[in-house]
């Protein structure tokens, strides 16, 4: 396939195989209803069949809608732009400059893979909350998608000539690949209960439309009344937890199986590429020239087993996206996270540099806050307790959070750390997720030094480095106020020079 370079480039259509998928989806959507009627002899009345009828209707409507979308969508790549026209009643025309393209990602659900299709998402570094969206082509044939990806990511910039360059000199270095043992790190989370609820709800409806009563079956399994509510709740929680954990485990294996993180060198730059998925596949390319750093988060409850989340700090990728495009590794052991981060950073790994401890006053501030917040509820409940609106023991029970809060304060203090390592600013903090972030110093766009009254009494300051990438602000909470300006000046070299008293700033350069 060739993409014409001239501006009268021809308009192209999405792959015709999209239509095949629509036909297949329609047939599949009708099948459960048909099977229920034929094989299980369920009476064809609407009262019993409505869940299956809903499935069939939804399948047909979405398939027809998809076919219309195919018929109305066309796109073309000119030498400067990507254009896409779509819509039946409301015609939309999107134009994206090729030099604004930050990422070209492909993904495929199972049905796309069977038909040899890929969904291509062209991102231009949109900011979330601005209402911008990426340009999605759903779907192209596998070869077209690969060609498009190569064309857009590899495109030489305007002043370079393509003829001089070696054709597609792509070098791939694999940095990490899937380990089935990681499933242990992904089975236990509060989401397990949501997962269990979803699974049980689905199973209940599916079975009830086939004439099997799941609820009645479980009710008869054990004599719930004789157990008492405490044990019954414990059994329900444990059962739900097990079902949910298994569900999350299977979900993880299917979603992250075949995971590979690789660094891809092309002649225009290098990308961190992840590929994952057994049934649905997803590939994300992260332009390393847009990367501003990396972070490792360690969740509190699972710190004993060394669980870690590894993310890149980069512009143009949404940190709120549920598919976690910034995560370059699935949740897994911290040893793997550290090794991978070291490989990505190369020789100088800022995340392994020693961090300065924060003054003891930072612990005192946390203890003060823990105490103050723990006393709010008892204080607010005092009058109702005295007047008898609530029982007299309630304010005292509310005070039970105090020791927990004090422990939390201590853990949060232990997590603190900050430093400057080479080109990077490194900060570590966080109670529920102790996160160590390394941010490139030349990416800092605003510096803020904050001091509350309590912090002033304790001789502390909080220094924040704002940036366009990742979570937008990276903080070093509660560093000594005597060192705060020096640290801020190092975090953003040259920025504070005009406003610093004394000679010291100029000496440092």
């Amino acid at each position, binding site marked *: 396939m060739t993409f014409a370079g001239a501006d009268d480039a021809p308009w192209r259509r999405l792959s015709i195989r999209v239509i095949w998928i629509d036909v297949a989806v329609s047939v599949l959507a009708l099948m459960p209803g048909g099977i229920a009627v034929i094989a299980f002899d369920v009476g064809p009345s609407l009262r019993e069949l409505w869940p299956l009828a809903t499935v069939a209707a939804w399948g047909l409507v979405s398939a027809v809608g998809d076919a219309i979308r195919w018929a109305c969508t066309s796109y073309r790549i000119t030498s400067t732009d990507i254009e896409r026209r779509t819509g039946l009643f409301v015609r939309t025309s999107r134009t994206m400059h090729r030099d604004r393209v930050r990422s070209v990602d492909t993904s495929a659900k199972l049905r796309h893979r069977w038909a040899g299709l890929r969904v291509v998402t062209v991102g231009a570094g949109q900011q979330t909350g601005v209402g911008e969206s990426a340009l999605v082509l759903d779907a192209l044939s596998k070869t077209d998608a690969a060609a498009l990806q190569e064309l857009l990511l590899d495109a030489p910039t305007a002043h370079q000539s393509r003829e001089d360059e070696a054709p597609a000199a792509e070098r791939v270095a694999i940095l990490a690949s899937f380990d089935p043992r990681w499933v242990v790190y992904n089975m236990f989370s509060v989401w397990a209960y949501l997962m269990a609820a979803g699974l049980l709800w689905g199973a209940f409806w599916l079975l009830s439309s086939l004439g099997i009563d799941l609820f009645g079956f479980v009710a008869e399994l054990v004599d719930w009344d004789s157990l008492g509510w405490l044990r019954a709740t414990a059994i329900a929680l444990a059962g739900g937890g097990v079902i949910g954990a298994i569900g999350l485990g299977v979900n993880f294996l299917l979603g992250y199986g075949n995971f590979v993180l690789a660094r891809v060198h092309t002649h225009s730059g290098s990308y961190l590429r992840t590929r994952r998925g057994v049934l649905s596949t997803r590939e994300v390319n992260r332009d390393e020239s847009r990367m501003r750093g990396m972070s490792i988060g360690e969740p509190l409850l699972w710190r004993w087993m060394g669980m870690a989340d590894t993310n890149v700090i980069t512009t143009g990728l949404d940190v709120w996206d549920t598919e976690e495009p910034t995560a370059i590794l699935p949740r897994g052991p911290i040893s793997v996270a550290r090794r991978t981060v070291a490989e990505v950073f190369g020789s100088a790994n800022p995340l392994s540099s020693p961090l*300065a401890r924060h003054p003891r006053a930072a612990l005192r501030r946390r203890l003060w806050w823990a105490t103050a917040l723990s006393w709010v509820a008892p204080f607010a409940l005092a009058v109702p307790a005295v*007047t008898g609106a609530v029982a007299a023991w309630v304010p005292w029970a509310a005070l039970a959070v105090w020791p927990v809060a004090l422990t939390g304060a201590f853990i949060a203090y232990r997590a603190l750390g*900050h430093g400057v390592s080479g080109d990077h600013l490194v900060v570590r903090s966080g109670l529920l997720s102790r996160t160590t972030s390394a941010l490139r110093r030349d990416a800092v*766009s605003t510096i803020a030094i*904050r001091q509350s009254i309590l912090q002033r009494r304790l001789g502390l300051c909080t220094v924040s480095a*704002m940036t366009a990438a990742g979570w*937008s602000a990276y903080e070093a909470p509660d560093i000594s106020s005597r060192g705060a300006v020096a640290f801020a000046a190092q975090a953003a070299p040259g920025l504070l020079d005009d*406003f610093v*008293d004394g000679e010291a700033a100029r000496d440092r350069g």
Partner: protein
Amino acid sequence: MNAADVQESSELRLRPPARRVERRAISWWMLRNAVACGVPLAALIVAMVLWEPVRAWFLMPTIALALVLVAKVAVEPRWRFGVHRWEITERATYARHGWLVVEQRVAPTTRIQTVDAVRGPLEQIFGLSTLRVTTASSYGAIAIRGLDRHTAEEAAARLAAVAELAEGDAT
């Protein structure tokens, strides 16, 4: 460079920004806070008068809110006036704001994306304006409140002219 170097090797201090905000800002802050705290306080008091069962629950919150109102009208505006300062140089925008929590912010001119002079309804009564300077970071905006509207417009125009000289997409 070693991480440990950062610690207190020398004591640097930021000097305060050069310019104060308008004295009229004190009245603006007083009016704003009186409205913001007065409305919920009035709602609480009305609820307590009209509906007997909630009295025990609302007594403490009402007392607390009344104390907050007094602090925000009698103390906060004057305190803020002492803290709020600003300065714009060729290379950076520097502002100090807050009262219980004081924050100093510096943004380099090269990273500025937008400069606006904004006037809310209450600010218009006092002829005041807020100069809002944003960078590519969604947390990085600097808002300089309580400027005379002409000063703010002038500063916005000057800053926009300087910032346009800088190249790149400011991320």
